[in-house]
C-alpha cells in the first residue's frame, strides 16, 4: 500500500520521534509513505486567522501536489489535517472557492490515525504485536481538530471518538474511558494567554490522574508538546507534581511491535516514560 505523506513542520523539530515512529510502524505494516515533494506550510496558526485566501490557498497547493501522484494524502498533525480538510471542502463543496489552484478532490485527506485504523489496515495490526502493552492504562486524547467540526472532518463520532481506544486495546493495553478525549488543551493560547492554557491542560492532567491512567496517548504533535513540556510549570503553579508520560500513538505501536528504535524515541520526551514502562515490564 502506498500513500502520500504530508508531515507538516513539527515533524522536523519537536515531534521528530512522532515522524520516526510513523515511518517505522508503517514499514512494519508494509505501508509505503511517500512525502509529497515540495510541500509547504498548511496555513495553521497564523494564516487561517489572518487571511481567508491564504488559509485555503496554502493547503490547496499541498492537495494539488497529492492529486498529481493520484494517491490519498495522510498527515500526522491535527492542525494540518484540519486545514487540508477545510481547503478540500472549500474548494470542492457547494460554494466552490477559487484560489487559482485546480484541486478536484480526487485524493482523500486522512489523518494518520484515521489511516492506520481504517478497514483493511487495522486488521493487520494485531498480527504484528510482539510485546503487548500489558497492564498499561492509557487514556486516549484526540484533541479537538481531528474530529471537529464534523462537517469538515467527516468524523462520525466527534463527541466520543474511539479509534485510538480500540487501537490501544489491540496493542494489548488497557484503554481507560475518560470524559476529556476531545477537550481543548488550550494549545493555541500557549504563548498568548498562559493562564487559560494552564487551566485547560491542567484539567486534562488532573482528569487523567483521576481516571488512574498511567499515561496519555496523543495523535497530534501540538497536543503532545503542550501536555508533555509544561507539566512542571503547571504543577508548580498549583503545588502538584505531574509525571504523566505523553505518548504518540505510533510510539506505543512501535513498542508493542517490538521495534528496537522505540527506546530512542522515548528519550526525547520531557516526562521520561522509561520508569513507567520499566515498572510494567514493557522494556
Amino acid at each position, binding site marked *: 500500500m502506498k500513500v502520500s505523506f504530508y508531515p507538516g513542520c513539527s515533524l522536523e523539530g519537536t515531534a521528530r520521534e512522532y515522524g520516526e515512529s510513523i515511518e517505522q510502524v508503517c514499514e512494519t505494516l508494509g505501508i509505503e509513505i511517500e512525502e509529497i515533494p515540495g510541500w509547504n506550510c498548511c496555513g495553521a496558526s497564523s494564516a487561517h486567522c489572518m487571511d481567508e485566501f491564504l488559509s485555503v490557498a496554502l493547503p490547496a497547493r499541498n492537495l494539488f501536489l497529492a492529486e498529481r501522484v493520484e494517491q490519498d494524502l495522510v498527515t500526522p498533525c491535527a492542525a494540518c489535517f484540519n486545514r487540508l480538510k477545510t481547503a478540500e471542502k472549500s474548494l470542492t463543496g457547494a460554494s466552490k472557492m477559487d484560489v487559482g489552484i485546480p484541486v478536484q478532490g480526487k485524493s482523500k485527506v486522512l489523518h494518520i490515525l484515521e489511516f492506520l485504523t481504517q478497514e483493511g489496515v487495522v486488521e493487520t495490526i494485531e498480527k504484528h504485536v510482539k510485546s503487548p502493552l500489558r497492564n498499561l492504562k492509557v487514556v486516549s486524547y484526540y484533541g479537538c481538530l481531528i474530529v471537529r467540526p*464534523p462537517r469538515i472532518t467527516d468524523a462520525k*463520532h*466527534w*463527541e*466520543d471518538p474511539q479509534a485510538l481506544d480500540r487501537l490501544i486495546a489491540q496493542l494489548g493495553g488497557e484503554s481507560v*474511558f*475518560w*470524559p*476529556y478525549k476531545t477537550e481543548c488543551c488550550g494549545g493555541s493560547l500557549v504563548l498568548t494567554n498562559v493562564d487559560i492554557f494552564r487551566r485547560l491542560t491542567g484539567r486534562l492532567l488532573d*482528569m487523567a490522574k*483521576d*481516571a*488512574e491512567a498511567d499515561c496519555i496517548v496523543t495523535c497530534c504533535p501540538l497536543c503532545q508538546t503542550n501536555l508533555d513540556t509544561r507539566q512542571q510549570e503547571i504543577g508548580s503553579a498549583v503545588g502538584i507534581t505531574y509525571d504523566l508520560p505523553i505518548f504518540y500513538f505510533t510510539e506505543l505501536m512501535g513498542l508493542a511491535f517490538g521495534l528496537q528504535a522505540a527506546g530512542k524515541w522515548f528519550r526525547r520526551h520531557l516526562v521520561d516514560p522509561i520508569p513507567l514502562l520499566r515498572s510494567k515490564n514493557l522494556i
Partner: protein
Amino acid sequence: MNSNETKSNFKSDPPPVGAVMVVGGGIGGIQSSLDLANSGFRVYLVEEDSAIGGRMAQLDKTFPTNDCSMCIISPKLVEVGRHNNIEILSYASVDGIEGEAGNFRVTVKQKPRFIELDKCTGCGDCAKVCPVEVANEFDADLINRRAVYKRYPQAIPNAFAIDKLGISPCKAHCPAGIHVQGYVALIGQKKFKEALALIRKNNPLPAICGRACTHPCEGACTRNQVEDPIAIMSLKRFVADWGYAQEELDLPPIDEKREEKVAIVGAGPAGLSAAFYLALAGYQVAIFEALPEPGGMMMWGIPEYRLPREVLKKDIEYIQRLGVEIKTNTPLGPELSLDDLFNQGFKAIFLSVGAKKSVKLGIEGEDSEGVIHGLDYLRAINAGKEIPLGDQVAVIGGGNVAIDVVRTAIRRGSKNAFIIYRRSREEMPALEEEVIEAEEEGVKIHYLVAPKRILNRDGKVIGIELLRMELGEPDASGRRRPIPIEGSEFIVEVDSVVPAIGQSTDLSFLPKEKGWNISQGGTLEVDPVTYATGIPGVFAGGDMVTGPATVVEAVGAGREAAISIARYLQGIDLSEGREGKLPVVEVTPEGVAKNPRHSPAKLDVQERIRDFREVQQGFSEEVAVAEAQRCLNCGICSECLQCVEACLAHAVNHEMVEKHLTLSVGSIVLSPGFDVTDPLLREEYGYGHYPNVITSLEFERILSATGPYQGHIRRPSDLSDPERVAWIQCVGSRDESHGKDYCSSVCCMYATKEAIIAREHNSTIKPTIFFIDIRAHGKGFDQYYERARDVYHVRYIRCQISKIVEKPRSKNLLIAYIDETGKVVEEEFDLVVLSVGISPSKTSRQLAENLEIELNSYGFCQTDPLTPMQTSRPGIYVCGAFQSPKDIPETISQASGAAAFASEILSKSRGSLVCQEVFPPERDVQGEEPRIGVFVCHCGINIGGVVDVPAVKEYAQTLPHVVYVDENLYTCSQDTQAKMKEVITEKQLNRIVVASCSPRTHEPLFQATIREAGLNKYLFEMANIRDQCSWVHMDRKEEATRKAKDLVRMAVAKAQFLEPLKEQELTITKRALVVGGGASGMVAALGLASQGFEVFLVEKEKELGGNLRNLYYTIHGNEVQEYLRSLLEKVQNHPSIQVILDAVIVDFTGFKGNFKTGIMSGPAMAYRQIEHGVSIIATGGEEYKPEEYLYGQDERIMTQQELEGKIFRQEINPGIVDEVVMIQCVGSRIPERPYCSRVCCSTAIKNALKIKEKNPHANVFILYRDIRSYGLLEDYYARARKAGVIFVRYDLTNKPEVTQGKEGLAVSVYDPALREKITLHPQLLVLSSAIIPRENNELASLMKLQRTSDSFFLEAHMKLRPVDFATEGMYLCGLAHSPKPLDESISQAAAAVSRACTLLSHDTITVGGVVARVDEEKCSACLTCVRVCPYDVPFIDEKGVAQIDSARCQGCGSCASECPGKAIQLQHFKDEEIIAKATALLKKEAA
C-alpha cells in the same frame, strides 16, 4: 369526513369485510381495538411483542394527574384480553398486503412463542428453572430476565414466551444434535444432573464423547470470533464423570414397556446408541457383537491414554442397565443370518458393524514382516497383546489413527516413532490438539513425503523408500493434491512400518440375494434421514454406512435409526416431520470482552509416555462452571428443556415454527408506537460509559414499584440514594445535527412528572431540569409545571448542556451551565436523567414498506393536517406517535378517530363478523346462607409493600360467613381472574369481596368475572385498601394493616346482605345531537352520518363554520376557506344531517341511549324537542379580546387572528411593513388564566413566516416566554429562525411595555440574552392572545356537564378518556375541550364519533341495577325526593306516590338519604347494608 366518495365505490362491489386489523398493541392500538370491537367489528390486534401494553405499560405515573400508569391501563388490557371480538396476534408482524380499502388480504408473520397460549396459566414455573439470563427490555435493560419470560406481571396475553432465535451453532454442528448450549447453560448454573440428562437425550455415551470426540461444536462456537471456543468436550466429560461419581445413578424414565424385540448387530457407538434409545422407548433390545468385548472402535481403536477402559465400561454398563442385552462373540455370518434373527422373533434389525478392514498402501514390500496396519496394531495392543515394533517406526498417514499408533508405539518403548504424511500440516485430518500432544511427546511428523516401497531383508523390514511431494490443485476432498517430485527419493532405515491410511467396510456377511444398495466406496447405502435399508425392518448406520467417521456421528445415526425403528414398529410414517425447521443462529458478537478459555490440565510429558494413563485431566467443578459461563447464549433459549419438565400444564413446545396467516380485513389502523431515541446520539453525555447517566425510560422503571429497585430510587453505580438529580431535556429532539429536528412533545412534561414523583418518593431529592423551552402546552400542564416549580421545588435552568463529565472515583457527574447572570457554573450531580425523545419504532419503516404507505423525512407516517389519520393508502389509518410525537390523550383521541374512519368505510358490514358474548345462566342464590369469598390483593408492592397482606388474609378468615380467602400478587391479572372463577364454582361462593384498589377502575372487571362464574354481578363488594389505605399511610405500616383489616371487615359485613339485582333492556335512539357547528361539530356530524346514523347539528349562530370563518391558512399551508367550503357542502347535502341554525338549547332530559333535548331556533324561537341516543358537545372557543398592551386603542395593535384576516383580505400589505412585534402569551399563562393556549406560538410563527415570505427584509420580533412549537411544528420554528425572525424572550415578571408616542408605537422589553432593556418601534403590534371557551355556563348546568376552573368542559379522565364526559352517552371535542389547532380538533371530533358509535351501534342498552326504589306503602308524597333529585327523575304518579324511572335514575342516592319516611332505598346501598358496614367499622378488631 372525507369518505362519501370512497363509500360509493362499494355500491356494486361485494360488501366490505366487517373486520379491522390494528397494528400495534400500545394504548393507541388498544383504544382503536376496543372502539371497533364495541361498535360491531371483528378486530385482529397485531403486536410484535409477546404482550400488548406498549410504552404506557412501562411508565410509572402519568401527568398531569399522577395516576399510576399500570393501574389505569390494566383494566383496558384485561378488557382487550377478554373481548371475544378482539383476537390478539402477539409476536406478529405484517408481512404484506393485497386488495384495497374494504377488502384487504393481509399476510401476517407470527414468530413462534414456543408456549401454547391456550395451555399456559402464567404460573411462571418455567422461568424459575430457566438457566439463561438476558437483559429485561421491559425494565429498560436495568436488570435481567430469563429466556422464558412474561413481559410484565399484568401482561396480556397472560402467558409466558420463550425468547429463542433459533438453533445455536454448536447444536447445529453436532452430528448427534446434542442441546449443547443447553447443557453448557445448566453447567453454568451448577445443574449437573440436569445437564447430564440433557446430553443423554441425544447421546448415551457422555463420558466417551467427553474424551474422544472430534467436537465440531467447538469449531462452530461463536466465541471463536472473540478468542477461543467454549471447551465443550471437556464440559461434557466433567458432567459425565460427575454423574458416575454420584452414588445414586439416575436412569432416565422408560416409556411403557413394549413386547417387540429389536436386534442390533455390532456394539459400537451406533449400535449402543440405537439400543439405548430403543430401550428407552420400551423395546426389548439385544446386541449381537462379533468380538469378545462391546465398544467397537472405541474399544479396539482408541488407545487407553485417550479413553480409559473403565470410562468406556461405565457408559456401556449404563446402557445395559436399561435392560439391553449384549451377546459378545456372536458374529453375523453363516451361523447367524438376518433371517435367523427374524425367525427368533426380532421384529426389526439395526446393522452397525463398522468399518474395520484396513486399507492397504499398495506398494512394494507391504507384505514384509514388520509391516502391520494401524488399526490391526491398535486392536492387538488394546486386546493386551505384545507387538514389538522396534526402535525405528514409520507410521504412514495423517489421520487420528496414525497419531494414535505413533503415540502408542512410544508408550510401548519405541525410541523413534515418526509420521510420514504426504501433504502439509494444513491438510492433515488429525485433530490439532492430538497432533500437538504427539509432538510434545517427541513425535516428528514428516510432511510432503510419501512411501514408495518398503525395503526388506529376509522378508523383514529394514527400511522404507520415500518420495518428496509438492501440493497441486485441490482434489475432491477439497484438500490440495500431493504431486510427487521427480527424483526426490530417499531411504530411511526403519524396524517397522505401520500404514494407517484408512479403513473400509466389510459387507461380505450380507446375504447377496436381498438387493442391498452398495456404494462405490463399498459402504451400505441407506435413507439419509430414516437410515432404512431397502429391506423392510432392516436399518443400518455408523461407519458401515458413512465409511470411517467419528463416534459422535455414529451416535447420531444410532439415535435416528432408533426413532425410525420405533416408528416402523408402530406403523408411523418414517420420515414425517423430521426435517429441522428452525434457522441456525448467526451471531456477530459485539462488545464482548475477551475471557480466555480454560484448558484442562495434562499429565506431564515425561510421565505420560511411560504408560497408558489418561493424558487429559478433567475440570474441577469451579473451572467447569466458569468455563460454561463463557457461553454467549447465541440462541438465547439454550433448549435445555428444563421448562418442558417444569411445566405441569404441558404448554411448552420447542418445536413451534413461524406461522404465516392471511387475514381478510376491510381496513387497517396503524399504531406501531415509538422507540425512545438512542441516547448514544449525544455521545457527549457519556451514556453507556457513565453508569449514573440514565435515560428517562430507565428512570421510569426505577420509579416503578414493579421496576428493578421496587420503586426505591437508586442510582445504578452503587445503588445509593441520589440527592442531586438532573434532567437534561431535548436529548435526541430539536437536534438538527442528528436528523432529529422535531420536538418530541412529551419530554418537558414527563421530566417534570419524574421530578415530582422522585420527590414524593424521597423528599431529600433536589431535582434540577435543564431545558431550552418548557413545553407545557396541554390541558392542565402549565399548572402542573408551576406546581412542580413552586410546591415541589423543582429547579428549572434554561440552558442546553453541552457535556457531562464523570468524576472517576465517586461516579458523580459534573455539569457546566450558564446561569441567569451569564456566569458559567459547574455543578455536581449524583444522577443525571437524559430526557430522550420519541423516534419512530425500529420496525415501522419495514411496516410502511410492506403496506406501501409513505413516511415523512423523519420516518413518521405522512399525513395531511386536514386528514390527520389518513395514510397515503386508502383504507389504512394511523394514530399515535407513529403519526408524530404525542402524549397519551392525543394518542387515544387519534386512536378513536382512526377507528371512526376505519369503520366508516365498513359501516355496511357492521356486525357481520362479531360473535355475541354468552354468559352462563345466573345461579339463584336466594335463600342460601352467605358463603363469602375474600380475595386480598398485593398489587405488586403498591399494597403489599405497606399492608401486611398475609395478616389481612388470616384475619379475613375469622370473619363471619367467610368460607374462602386468598391473596394475589395482582388480583386483576387474567390468571387470577380465571382462578377466581374456579374457586367460586368449587367452593360454591355466593358473595365475593375483593380487597384491592379502586372500584372506579376495577369493579366492572371483577363483576364481569363473577358473572362469568354464574353469579349476579351485584353479589360483589370491594374494599379499597390501596388508594384509601396503603397509598395514604405509606409510612405507617402497622396502622395501615389495621385499617386494611377494618376495611375488609366492613366489606364482608355488607357483603352478607348483598342481593342479586335485575337489569332491564331499553332500546337506543339511533340518532345523535351535535352541539356546535364549527370544524369539530361538522366533522363529528359528518362522521356519524357516514356511519349511518341520523344527526342533528345545532348551531347558535346563523351560519355554520365557527372559527374556521376567521382562519385562512394553516401553518402547513392548507387553505382553510376551501376546507370550510367543502365541509359545508358535505354537511348541507348529507341526507342524514339536519342542521338547526340560530338555535339555543333550552331543556335536556334523559340518559344514554335516550336523551330528549329541547331547542328553540330561528328568529321566532320556535321550540322543538329532539330525541337522540348520544350528544357531542363541540361548542368551541374563541380568541380572547385583550385588555392589555393598549389593544383597542390603536389600530396598529391587533390580534393574530385579526392580522391573518387583514393579510388575507389585503388590508395589510406585508411588503411595506418594516417592523412587526408579536407578543406571546397575551392573556395566557397568567394568574387569571393560568393555562397555555397551545396554538399561539405556532400561529405567531405562521404569520411571521407569512410576513417574511412577502417581505424578507421586514424585522419581525416575537416576544415570547417559551416557544411551544411541539412535535413537527418545530420545523416551522427553525424555518422562522432561518428566515430571520427574531425571538426575544421575556419573563412574566418583566412583561413588555407598550407605549404610544410621537414616533409611533414603542415596545420595550428586557432581553435576558443581552441582559438589558431594548425598545422596538413596530408598525404593527400583534398580540398572540389566548383561546377562551365560548360562553357555556348555561349549557353546562342544563346538561349537567363538568367544567374545569378555566371553563373548558372537563372530560371523564384526562389521560384515558379524553373525549368522554363523565355522563355516559355525552362526548366532547374541539376547543370546547381545550385550546388546540385544527388538525387536533379534527382528530378529536372523529374520536367523539367513534366513542358515540360504541353506543349507537347497539340496539339496546341495559339499565337498572344500582337505582333508587320507592316503597309505595311508606311514601307520603312529601315531594322531598322530587326536590332533591339533581336529575329531575322522581315524580308523583296518579296513585299519589313517588315514581323513580330506573332507566333515568343515576343511582346517586340523594333521594334515598333525604326521604323522611325511609320509603326510598338505593339498591346495592340499602340501609341494612350501610348500617352493617358502619357497625362493623365501630366493632373493633378482636385482637
